[in-house]
């Protein structure tokens, strides 16, 4: 990833976002492409370019939390964990009994998954075309 393509993340944050995106949407399973096939971390970077300074700081803080907290329990950075370990680790956020942790994770999931599932290649893969611009699918053709 050439750094100049990134709008708001630096290379380090991009790498963390990429590792998170891959765990949220891994390749294979019910349909083939995963986050890295469409570079969901780059789409995420482009999507969040209009967050306010405080909101962006909050996103940065979440990314760093996810990157560094495994050091305490797994003695590894998030980006150094295997895909399986990363999925399991993030499931801990998704299913946490602490509601604020769940909410923070939903926010991140939204910002990563929205651009991913809007990508035409992914909509092809899941057989849904919900965002076709001027003439989206409809019941009565105009």
């Amino acid at each position, binding site marked *: 990833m050439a750094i100049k393509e990134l709008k708001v993340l630096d290379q380090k944050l991009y790498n963390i976002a990429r590792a998170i995106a891959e*765990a*949220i*949407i*891994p390749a*294979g*399973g*019910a*349909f083939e492409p995963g986050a890295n096939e469409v570079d969901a971390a780059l789409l995420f970077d482009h*999507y969040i370019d*209009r*967050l*306010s*300074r*405080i*909101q962006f700081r909050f996103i940065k803080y979440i990314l760093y939390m996810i990157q560094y907290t495994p050091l305490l329990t797994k003695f590894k950075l998030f980006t150094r964990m295997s895909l399986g370990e990363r*999925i399991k680790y*993030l*499931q801990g956020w*998704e299913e946490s009994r602490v*509601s*604020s942790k*769940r*909410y923070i994770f*939903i*926010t991140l*999931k*939204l910002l*990563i*998954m*929205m*651009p*991913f*599932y*809007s990508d035409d290649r992914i*909509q092809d893969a*899941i*057989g*849904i075309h*919900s*965002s076709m*611009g*001027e*003439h*989206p*699918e*409809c*019941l*009565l*053709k*105009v």
Partner: protein
Amino acid sequence: MPAEGINMLFTYKDITKDIFEQPDVCIIGSGAGGAVMADVLSGAGLDVVVLEEGGYYTKDRYSNYKPYESFKILYRDYGATLAFGRIPIMLPLGRAVGGTTVINSGTCFRTPDSVLNDWAETFGIIKASPIDMEPYFERVEKTINVVPVDPEILGRNGLVFKRGADALGLSNGMLKHNMINCHGCGRCVFGCPTDAKQAVHLNFIPSAVKHGARVYANARADRIRVEGRTVKEITGSILNEETDNRIYSISVKPKLLIMSAGAVYTPYMLDRNNLRISPELGRNLAIHPAVRVTAMFDELIEGYKGVPQGNYMDAYASEGIMHEGIFVPPEIGLPVMGKLGFKGKELASNYNRTAAFGVMVSDKNSFGSVRAGVDNRPFITYSLHPYDIKKMIKGIAVASEVFFAAGAKSVNTSVFGFNELKTPDDISRLFEKKISATAFEMMAFHPLGTARMGEMPGHSVVDSFGKVHVIDNMFISDGSIVPTSLGVNPQITIMSLSMRNAEHIAENRSKLIK
């Protein structure tokens, strides 16, 4: 050059220098409340200026965006304005010429008679009885073309819910919407790509402009200068739409100010300007908390085809529980419904067989507030009362029963710990132990009440016609004056009150506009 076809609607592109205006009336905000005010007052011959922070968008501009990109363009804070309490509740707000009506679902309900009668009794509000309001409802509905949704464009998501409700004998029907030639593309909350939804930027705003009102898009009001009991000046910024940076200043010295920035931004702005016009300002926030219930079917649903909020079930409306259709495309639905990893991908590939319906409760007991916070943003709090939680659980249980009666294989409640109900027998689990507010994933779409009407100054912020009790030339006309939760979607209430209040101002202009 002003926006094409509309001579006096200016966007940041038309503005090349600082602006000074001295109109009769300045209106801050061009949504449901502000647009109607602008039309009626300019139609009555008053010189009107409208300041709107958001941009001017019509189908030609936003139909080329993907739905999720609308959050960036037509919503405030990417649609993630939050109310904080035991759980954060997402409270999306529109930011555009036309306000939240540009991105709302288009559902139209008149204010229930019982609510209007209650306002008279509890707050002493005059001339807002069901009979008084009738002509305003009629005129508003005519202007924005309120019609029942044609069942042909309801889509299968609405139809399966109807099937279940009918099987259980629960009262339900088609909603009324403000639309012309809707073709059921399912994108109402991202901006209607064909202008079928009659948001106020397509009717009241152009009519106001025709009457001579000057509407400034990308114009944010920042400061309100008040001396004694009189508003003297509003100053603000013309914003570059791409960056939100200030490019010019705007100063308006009106004879009368109307705040129509919505139930969140009106109290926020007044607080930020240290205008503590009442101890009730910013309090009494009602939001109609809502949750979704989703269900998996064997049959093809394709819920993103059809009017997303086309039908309702009002069997429990008397208990303050309304069920209304909701459906969003997969890119929005999957992140909130789905799991991460391979399970999430499985759900994505089954999205075509997923149905969803919304549960909304009338929040008479919960309590919220708005005040100025950090980062030039409002700080919103909201705490859900245990009684309203009970209503929410009941609403979820009923929606689950309806889905099972319609043939669902399983139901997802979005309540932590009760996510998947596999059989109708599982529904009773929802009542077995106390569910706390923190278990819900909640959203809300109808902020109301933060500058409520009433005839007792200590108990309300504005009088029965929206005039601020303690300022001689300031009115409020938006969701914030609606004194209580309505139990139904509020745009018709807000527009009709605004029309009534605007007529009151026009009739009393010699006293109010000096």
